[in-house]
């Protein structure tokens, strides 16, 4: 069972193989750059996708709500083995991190208020802010190319951070504005869907 578009019918990949592959990605992708791990495994090691397909699915993942890692698991799993493949992939990619953070939650509940733990976690939080800012800059470098983009970035950050708009409101207002700004260029037959 491939996508209804029939764009790709790869060799039969078993559900177990899909689960194990995504489980390995979910267990080893330390450092947040899960996209790089996905590419190395899916395009490099297994050749389930080529680079063009990978970038295409990644752009869909980034536009939709949901994390890149889980959206990619759904889209790739679906391409390989339909909804069962999608389910195997997302469970695999989530399982290791979920178990780890469950244990962290238990330990934090028991030891989180010790002064030494608190001091360490404040240092971790400071470092994490640096990491998150760096990730944002890298995301911006990849996806922004136009001066108008900076206006949309700033406008979104201002309405959410200073004016306390909800994310759906910001998406509805600034998102609609940005989509209209990048509306299809009028061609001979017009922008008819």
């Amino acid at each position: 069972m491939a996508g209804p578009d029939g764009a790709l019918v790869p060799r039969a990949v078993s559900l177990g193989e899909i689960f194990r592959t995504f489980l390995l990605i979910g267990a080893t992708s330390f450092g947040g750059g899960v996209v790089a791990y996905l590419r190395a495994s899916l395009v490099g090691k297994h050749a389930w996708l080529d680079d063009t397909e990978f970038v295409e699915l990644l752009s869909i993942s980034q536009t939709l709500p949901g994390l890149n890692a889980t959206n990619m698991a759904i889209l790739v799993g679906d391409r390989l083995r339909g909804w069962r493949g999608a389910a195997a992939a997302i469970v695999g990619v989530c399982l290791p991190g979920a178990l780890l953070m469950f244990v962290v939650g238990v330990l934090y509940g028991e030891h989180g208020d010790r002064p030494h733990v608190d001091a360490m976690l404040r240092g971790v939080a400071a470092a994490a802010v640096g990491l998150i800012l760096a990730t944002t800059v890298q995301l911006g470098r990849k996806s922004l190319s136009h001066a108008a983009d900076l206006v949309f970035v700033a406008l979104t950050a201002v309405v959410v951070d200073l004016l306390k708009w909800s994310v759906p409101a910001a998406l509805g207002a600034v998102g609609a504005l940005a989509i209209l700004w990048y509306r299809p260029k009028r061609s001979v037959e017009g922008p008819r869907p």
Partner: protein
Amino acid sequence: MNLKELPALVRVFAYLSLLTVGGGMAAFPELKVLTVDVHHWLTFPQLIHLYSVGQMAPGPNMMMIVAIGERVAGVAGAAAVLVAFFLPTAVLAYFVGRLWVRLARWPWRASIQRGLAPVSVGLVLAGCLTIARGALTGWVTVATAAAVFVLLLRTRLNPALLVLCGALVGLAALGGK
């Protein structure tokens, strides 16, 4: 452990999952409002601690939500949060993903992808500002964040390793009180 909170956990995290456009960070401002200010499941510093530790975990980078669920309602809470947070966007990705591929030649598809790109960066930036306000409390934390930021943009060091180094800085410089 409070099983009466389960419906609220499911509601909150199903809603938050739909806000993660561009990355989990986009949902952070409302994650803070809902878990800290509205439901009092944990304090803002506790949320920041769990979120930061979560940055070192492998896999999807919002797994710290499991720790919130565990804190509120034990194993049941962790499982409820996990399903509530990942199922809605999974179903959405499944159906819209199929539709999206079929819409490859629809001109507005490119406009939507292009237009939402800067907005999602803005959402993630707003999340950064929220967490920075809570985590950067003095010169040690500001210097740590700045050092990690510069190192990550200039080198290819593993981010998880740098965040772990933050723990040592914290122990050495922030442990005195």
